[in-house]
């Protein structure tokens, strides 16, 4: 089977279309970053408190919002999270509600606000830690154990939590559900209702990032990106010519700009893992560019008489089959990640989905034309044409 065989497309002839396409997307992204959604930094970078709450029933956004208002958390953003049947809500507090003096204050307030049905003196079993449960059981001692009580009750508390979190998905709707749960002693189960009640939610996940860490991470992410670009420039300058390195870096910059622009346009949070994805796409786009450059380097030696633009066109066509295949297959794996990878990987895989499309496009539409444009510019200025790398091999 073969999809592309001896193609002969004049890619360089279409450079103005490419330029227009790239400009439209870059400018749209930049405008959105400047005037519309700005750069939607995730909690890792902007700081703040995220609490992921799972309800035992379909959550009522307005009720949740009202509870937050009652607790004085006025700027809380409330949104549904993940698949609808998961009944999950994400409560997002601004960094101003997150002080390093009492980092988890926001989380505590959210839980208290939602525990609206709390009877006096009882603890919420859906949000109790294993230590709390163990301590309660120890004080009650329903199983009348001797010296190994500590160990036994630690195991009991863990069994209760395992059932709540792993079997029931994080929320119990009735204490009776624990009857017959693996490893839970009936006597221990029976004593729970004296000290515990059940709210209609459980906190699944908490992320609290203080303002200092956020600023520091922004700096780190910027540094990581700049250093990896510099590393690339140096390596390509060493293996090819400087203009190849510059062309690759401009290409990668173009890809990053468009990807971040897409995040701004779609208002998807840029988290730490998204930065990892962007660095990956830098690597990937660069990979594509190098494959084409390698072919150009090889063909320059074979086709000494021909114009550079012909050599470049020929090289792109020769590698086209490989480019499309690889891009297609990688796209397939990343698409699987995007579709089936779950909510946690959503931003990450979105960056890769966009990145692979743009990265493949840019190695043909941006990197190669830069080489030719540079050559034309040198000839126009009456200098000796370069871009004849012959260092490798």
């Amino acid at each position, binding site marked *: 089977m073969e999809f592309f065989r001896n193609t002969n497309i004049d890619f360089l002839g279409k450079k103005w279309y490419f330029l227009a396409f790239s400009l439209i997307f870059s400018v749209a992204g930049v405008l959105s970053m400047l005037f519309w959604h700005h750069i939607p930094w995730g909690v890792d970078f902007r700081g703040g408190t995220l609490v992921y709450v799972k309800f035992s029933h379909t959550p009522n956004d307005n009720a949740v919002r009202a509870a937050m208002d009652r607790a004085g958390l006025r700027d809380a953003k409330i949104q549904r999270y993940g698949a609808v049947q998961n009944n999950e809500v994400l409560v997002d507090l601004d960094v101003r509600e997150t002080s390093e003096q009492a980092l988890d204050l926001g989380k505590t307030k959210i839980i208290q606000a939602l525990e609206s049905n709390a009877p006096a003196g009882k603890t919420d079993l859906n949000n109790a830690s294993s230590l709390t449960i163990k301590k309660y059981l120890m004080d009650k001692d329903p199983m009348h154990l001797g010296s190994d009580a500590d160990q036994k009750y630690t195991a009991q508390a863990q069994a209760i939590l395992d059932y709540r979190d792993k079997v029931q998905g994080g929320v119990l709707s009735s204490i009776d559900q624990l009857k017959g749960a693996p490893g839970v002693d009936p006597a221990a189960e029976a004593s729970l209702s004296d000290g515990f009640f059940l709210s209609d939610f*459980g906190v699944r996940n908490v992320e*609290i990032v203080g303002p200092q860490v956020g600023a520091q991470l922004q700096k780190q992410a910027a540094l990581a990106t700049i250093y990896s670009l510099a590393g690339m420039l140096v390596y390509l300058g060493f293996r090819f010519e400087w203009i190849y390195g510059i062309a690759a870096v401009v290409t990668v910059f173009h890809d990053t700009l468009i990807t971040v622009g897409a995040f701004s346009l779609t208002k998807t949070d840029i988290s730490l*893992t998204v930065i990892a994805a962007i660095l990956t796409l830098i690597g990937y786009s660069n*990979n594509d560019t190098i494959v084409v450059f390698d072919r150009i380097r090889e063909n320059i030696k074979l086709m000494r008489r021909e114009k550079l633009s012909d050599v470049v066109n020929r090289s792109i066509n020769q590698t086209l089959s490989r480019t499309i295949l690889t891009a297609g297959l990688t796209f397939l*794996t990343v698409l699987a990640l995007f579709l089936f990878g779950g909510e946690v990987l959503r931003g990450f895989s979105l960056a890769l989905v966009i990145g692979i499309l743009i990265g493949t496009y840019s190695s043909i539409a941006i990197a190669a034309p830069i080489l030719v444009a540079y050559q034309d510019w040198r000839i126009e200025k009456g200098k000796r044409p370069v871009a004849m790398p012959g260092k490798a091999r």
Partner: protein
Amino acid sequence: MNKTFLWKTGLILGILLFFLFGIFGIPKSFSGSGLLAAVGEHIQLGLDLKGGTHLILQVKVNDAVNVDAQNAMEVLKEQLRNHKIDYADITQPDPANNPDHLVLKGVQASSRTDLLNIMQERLPEYDITGGSDNSWNISMKPSNLADLKSKAVTQAIDTIRNRIDALGVSEPTIQEHGLGQYQILVQLPGVDDPARVKDIMQSTAMLEIKQSLGGPYPSEQAAMQDKGGVIPSDALLLPGHNMPGADTGGQAWYLVSRVSAVNGKDLRDAQPSRDQNGQPSVSFTLSGEGGQRFYNFTSAHVGDSLAVVLDNHVQEVANIKEPIRDRGEISGGSMSEQQSKDLSMILRSGALPAGIKYLEERTVGPSLGADSIRAGVRAAVFGMLAVLIFMLIYYRGAGINADVALILNLIILLGFMGYFEAVLTLPGIAGVILTVGMGVDSNVLIFERIREELRNGKTPPSAVDQGFSHAWITIVDTHVTTIVSAAILFIFGTGPVRGFATTLTFGLLANLFTAVFVSRVIFDWNLSRKQRGDALSI
């Protein structure tokens, strides 16, 4: 079959076994669940996959510097007194930001040499400059300052580790974090509610035993009045508990000596116990040297009172009836049983050299971890299967090479992780997927090149040869640049991003071996079975 082919096959099988061992070890049973358990033992999951708490905290290193500077101030005062050098005063102008900066004023020019000598002999870690207007600037030498700060971080890590170990959290990670920001990363697998652990980690538990010079007083003013309006320079006024029989109503203040007889460093052991009223308390024993000092102190002060001070709060005042050598008790207040257990544990673990504050806190519930592992693995398997099937259809015979290479690549990658005890995180799974993508790319590069060479009329053996040698250069270039990016991610990234960089790097290294070497061996084997002129299935 020639010799080179045999040793190459042997090498590949050896490597396969080596990395399979890295993944499974020697499993107890070869059933599905037995193998799965074996994998679980060798491949460590990150917090995002197994659930737990991730904390970043910062050591307030200036606290430690402040203690040192205070101490230096006392030493200097004493020396100036001993050498009969007059001075107006010593101040610490900016204790919050530059605690090591001291200003000494009003020293006569004639005392210059003496002062410099004292500094050199007694405080060699401090620089002294100035002298004009009889005023001197004293600050710690930069290298000593840096040492002191990094020592505070190391000591904080040790103390926190002791405390977490005592709490029985299994497999915690406690390490320095970030780039020179005095930060510590603490990861606690399986801890779903970090509140209590955080309190215990944060507790400074600075224990001191001082001489009690007066009190309890109902207010600070009352204490001042009692001492004639000024607190003596060698004394401190501290808040404390109300003692039975001396109820001052509400708050109680005590005047204690500035110098401690013994402190937390002199402890050998601390255990929860009960005081004479049957209330929970903490009893402690002192080390040999500390015990000697305590003995000297109590012998000299029979009839006086001593104060047990915890975190600058007077816990207890007691009369010294006879010299005490090495025992003591902290009671008073209304300690609960849990508090007495926690306090004795904290005292045993040693004091924090400086306060800490929390910068970041993340908790992943175990159910979320389980969900994401399922989703990530499912996506990886789908993607992988689609790729394997496509390669078989598109490249037929050569598709087998690619599939073998890809599967071997995964085995080596996981084996690497097993051997290096690298942690598999969710972004790490994504790194695995990307590795698969890069692996496919190498195979496609080679195969397309071979097809091209065949089209140009080369014989199969020479087309394979040319295909590999041309593609090799490109593969090296692409892999090196990606590994460079991954290395930078590893250096600047944290937690999950590091996991991604780790799997990507291991995967790319494995790929260089499988896509180039292994695939070539299979091609050579195919070619050796063919007659001259037979077509290559590609």
